[in-house]
């Protein structure tokens, strides 16, 4: 039982539980750098806008195959804050709707890739020196022999261009990075005493991998995931930029930039605002990721 000795202290009465205390400390470390909080707010805003897109956008109909040639190619104005594209569609509306696809891309890829990459990395790292390790790590090397964007492009090229297929393509090129990260950590952690102790007590492989080793690798994985969100979204935008992602008339950030690039410089707003939107998304997740890194790094005591 814990006794509250903080009588008269302003902190008195606050929960003494470890979890509450840890959370408060984590938030303190996270918010020490104001830019992390800015990143968090930006990410929250992007997610909210994407979810509420049909309600917050001025012209929800413009997110599809809508045509209004009387308003085509109009510069930014009070009615269309970011101008209209060559079909007369409101660019702000389309950007906000495109956030949906971008977030689906980011979350979908990470949800599929992280478990696979992490499990393979754990197995390879723990089985160091065996045939299993060699097989897993050499296959990883093969996938890493191509720049990720090129591999994703190649996979995309042979499939029908849809958001889901481009997501699959990014997955193919993304998992080895997690395998390599977790492999490195596992192969150094596996000789720690607590792992040896678990082995001696006859714990199962499953227990050792997922209850002893994995919890000690979770911080870098989590950091990488936050940072990767931005990069996955950017890769998705790059695929749609060359025409191998989400197909028109559905809005995708990359497609909007490449379509708009044809009308530079006269109608610069068609390409420039979606390009800025991509930058903002990557920036937001990077700031958030750096904050998460600070938060988790100090927790490790390093």
């Amino acid at each position: 039982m814990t006794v509250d000795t903080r009588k008269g202290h302003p902190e008195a009465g606050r929960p003494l539980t470890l979890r509450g205390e840890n959370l408060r400390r984590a938030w303190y470390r996270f918010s020490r750098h104001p830019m992390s909080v800015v990143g968090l707010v930006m990410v929250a805003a992007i997610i909210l806008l994407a979810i509420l897109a049909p309600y917050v956008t001025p012209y929800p109909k413009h997110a599809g195959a809508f045509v209004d040639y009387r308003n085509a190619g109009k510069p930014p104005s009070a009615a269309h804050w970011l101008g209209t594209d060559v079909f007369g569609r409101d660019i702000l509306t389309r950007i906000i709707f495109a956030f949906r696809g971008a977030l689906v891309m980011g979350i979908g890829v990470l949800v599929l890739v992280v478990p696979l990459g992490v499990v393979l990395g754990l197995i390879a790292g723990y089985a160091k020196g065996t045939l299993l390790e060699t097989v897993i790590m050499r296959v990883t090397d093969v996938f890493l022999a191509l720049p990720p964007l090129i591999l994703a492009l190649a996979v995309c090229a042979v499939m029908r261009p849809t958001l889901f297929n481009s997501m699959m393509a990014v997955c193919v090129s993304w998992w080895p990075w997690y395998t390599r990260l977790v492999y490195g950590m596992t192969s150094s952690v596996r000789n720690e005493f607590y792992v040896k102790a678990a082995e001696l007590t006859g714990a199962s492989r499953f227990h050792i991998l997922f209850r002893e080793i994995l919890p000690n690798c979770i911080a870098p994985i989590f950091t990488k995931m936050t940072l990767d969100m931005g990069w996955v979204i950017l890769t998705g935008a790059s695929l749609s930029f060359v025409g191998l992602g989400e197909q028109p008339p559905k809005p995708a950030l990359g497609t909007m930039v490449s379509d708009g690039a044809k009308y530079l410089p006269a109608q610069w707003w068609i390409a420039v605002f979606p390009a800025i939107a991509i930058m903002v998304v990557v920036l937001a997740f990077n700031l958030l990721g750096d904050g998460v890194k600070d938060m988790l790094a100090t927790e490790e005591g390093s």
Partner: protein
Amino acid sequence: MGRELLRRIGLSIFVLFGLSILIFVIARVVPGDPARLALGPRAPEWAVQNLRLEMHLDKPIYEQYWLWLVGLVHGDLGKSLVTRRPVTADIREFLPATLEIVLLSALVMALGGISLGVLSAKYSNSWFDGVMRIVSYLGIVTPAFVWAIIFMLIFGYVFPLLPTTGRLSPGVSAPPTITGMMVLDSLLSGNLAKAWDAFLHLILPAVALAMGGLAQAARITRASMTDNMGKDYVAAETAYGIPFRRILTKYLLKPSLIPTVSVMALDIAALFGNAFLVELIFNYPGLSRYGIQAMLNKDLNAISAVIMVLGVVFVSVNIIIDIVVAYLDPRIGLAGRRNG
């Protein structure tokens, strides 16, 4: 070192062999019927049948792979299903153009990034360092194709100083092909004006490509340099009265560059990847633009050839970077970086 180098090359050959299987699976197994895919749904059945025979699609899958691999080793990658030219001829024409951009870009990235990083470390915590910190962060999060559009707007239209499309100005004839790199070819044939024209066309795409890696290199160099500045040997050298400028260039620079060069392998990967988008924007006839066209046309022979060639180039670049790191830090050696 010689032995390590051989081991690394052996490993790379193994990786490339694996890559050839991966590419074969992507190009031949995933799409279902590659011939039908390449010719489109409206092509007559006999044309599809002919192409199937030509691509050996009637043979069992392992034999198809074997034939493809043998062709690969002999430099015969089949015919482009769209242009009907041998893919090797296309690649010979377009690869040097891309290499030219990527080389210049890597140079800009390394020199620019390292010098900016060294300057920020030298004047750390000054206004210059502060500005650099924000600028490099923005540089990293800005995708290459966005840089391309920004540069195109600024230098192509607002201040029309540099050409924004193609490899040469209209009316300028191409130099005789020696290496395929136009700046080099013009120099070799002694035509300085032509070399200058080709060089001007390279600047915008190369710099747009380099920006992300440049910012990254600057950040990493600054971090490792300020880290090393706190080491005892620097204090000792300062105590001996060696001027700081000399310590910087003679003792600090080399060890501080190790992390930068190691990360540059990833940055160069990004260069090759982003070249696909940047060449498209600047309408630059390189391998990447050719590859994109092949992808949009479902030209599977060309796609697999382009990817394989880029794989070979990229793996070779990695070996070169390992050699540079081993030179910078003899303790690491060629074996060290992968496991480090």
